[in-house]
């Protein structure tokens, strides 16, 4: 049986199918069966996802209301919202919020510009196109901890080449906050720009070619074409890339952990949650940090999705 006969049969089968489903009794019976099968197939995914995230999160909410250290289990005591007050009054929490926000803003902004440039190159390059696409997937696939070590050793005084190459002599990159954050953000940017650039490339390919040609014929400059034709048509791809990368960067943990261990005020929010819960086994206050971290993510997602909606609404309105 070859493919063309299958295709023509498919059309035929589609025809008979719609004829049978015209009978109302058969349709309801069929749709009831379909609903049951759908629920059955979706159930395992649903159960696993809820069991391993929603339940522990509720457990964290409960734990956050207790004074509870694993080193002192007998001292477990209900203290209401005191853990939250302690965390929110602690300058460490706010310093970590600031560090996380700085890393997120800088890395996402740089990645968006760089990712667009990469997407543009991959779109335009003719010879060696697949070579470039293959090469760019390496940082995407590499283990983040490995990336962190590679960049750390490149900048580290005793092993690195960076100071030699740039004539910086004995400058210690990990001796201060800003230079440490620079290296952390650089590793983050190197590792995750490919993801953004591939998403943007997918958006770029979908920009209608005839629109660009029409704009060129009408005498639009390259800059006008970019601002008036390309970017507006890529809005959905840009928003998706922005949403995922922002939330991803906000949860950054691996890079600061490996590079600085949180020294010089480079601790991020995920790192704080890890330190309180796992290193200090202070599950009461640690859970309060966890719940607060979760709320910051909800807030960011909410703002984005709201912006998203109005954007998509506007796009529909225009068309």
């Amino acid at each position, binding site marked *: 049986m070859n493919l063309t006969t299958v*295709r023509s049969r*498919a*059309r*035929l089968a*589609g025809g008979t*199918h719609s004829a049978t489903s015209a009978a109302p009794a058969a349709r309801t019976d069929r749709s009831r069966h*379909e*609903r049951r*099968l759908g629920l059955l197939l*979706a159930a*395992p*995914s*649903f159960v*696993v*996802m*809820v069991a*391993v995230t929603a339940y522990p*999160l509720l*457990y*964290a909410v409960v734990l956050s209301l207790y004074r509870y250290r694993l080193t002192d289990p007998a001292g477990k005591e209900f203290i209401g919202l005191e853990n939250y007050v302690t965390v929110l009054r602690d300058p460490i929490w706010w310093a970590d919020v600031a560090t996380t926000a700085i890393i997120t803003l800088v890395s996402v902004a740089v990645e968006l510009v760089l990712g667009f440039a990469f997407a543009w190159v991959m779109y335009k390059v*003719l010879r*060696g196109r*697949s*070579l*470039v*696409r*293959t*090469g760019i*997937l*390496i940082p*995407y*696939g*590499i*283990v*983040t901890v*490995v990336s962190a070590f590679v*960049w750390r*050793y*490149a900048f580290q005084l*005793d*092993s690195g*080449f960076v100071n*030699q190459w740039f004539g910086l002599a004995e400058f210690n990159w990990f001796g201060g906050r800003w230079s440490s954050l620079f290296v952390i953000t650089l590793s983050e940017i*190197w590792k995750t720009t490919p993801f953004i650039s*591939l998403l943007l490339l*997918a*958006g770029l390919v979908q920009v209608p070619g005839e629109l660009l040609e029409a704009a060129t014929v009408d005498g639009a400059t390259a800059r006008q074409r970019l601002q008036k034709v390309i970017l507006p048509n890529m809005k959905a791809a840009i928003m998706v*890339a922005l949403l*995922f990368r922002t939330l991803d960067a906000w949860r950054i*943990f*691996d890079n600061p952990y490996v590079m600085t261990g949180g020294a010089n005020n480079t601790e991020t929010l*995920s790192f704080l*949650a*890890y330190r309180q*819960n*796992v290193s200090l*086994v202070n599950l009461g206050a640690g*859970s309060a940090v966890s719940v607060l971290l979760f709320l910051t*993510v909800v807030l960011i*997602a909410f703002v984005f999705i709201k912006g998203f909606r109005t954007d998509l609404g506007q796009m529909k309105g225009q068309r």
Partner: protein
Amino acid sequence: MDGRRTSNWWSLWGALVLVWALFPLAWMVSLSFKDPATFRSGSPRFWPESWTWENYRTVFDNSLFTAALRNSFGIALIATVLSVVVAMFAAYAIARLDFPGKNILLSLALAIAMFPQAALVGPLFDMWRGLGIYDTWIGLILPYLTFALPLSIWTMSAFFRQIPWEMEQAAQVDGATPWQAFRKVIVPLAAPGVFTTAILTFFFCWNEFLLASSLTSTDSARTVPAALSFFTGQSQFESPVTAVMAASVVVTIPVVILVLLFQRRIVAGLTAGAVKG
């Protein structure tokens, strides 16, 4: 002539992108072949002055690393297979069936894709110790399965939506049994999407560090990323830089192989769920 020149121009930019992507890899390989005793004497150069396999011997003689490698492979493979199978059911239902709760499932998957894993390390740490699965394979496979599911469901349902499902009925009209129709028509059409999803899921599990370092304590379940971070913590003054780089090269090899073999599929998979979904 002019077109030729611009084409060369873009090739140059392409080469620059390649340098940016691969340059740190060259540094990693170089450092892994440097002599551990002398690599930091004087002013370090980019390439080794003399190449040595010593770091690779050190790493493979270290039972901490070989155990971690075994754990990484086992946990990532099992979690990937489970996640792809469970997500395949859901993706089929989303792409083909009309049932209540479809949007709830997709929203839940999206919410979990955004979920801060760090918020779970405390409760999971406590729960897993209570359940007796702290520092075991299953203790890592469960959360990996969970956090890989959203990616798997979104990517696979995007692929499944493009399959011409009528062909299954067409084959049956031609006299194939339902099983034959599924085996000979649907499986070959669906396999590329499933396979691509499996690669992306494997990358996620292979890469994971936060949960691996929170939910393990010995080499019975500790994966390579976690083992690497403890490797350096052991001695602050004699940090085994070159050995860590040799271990890094070893865990990067599977990634490079998968990328080289399946470049086209990975790109398609990465963009399928996000842009079309």
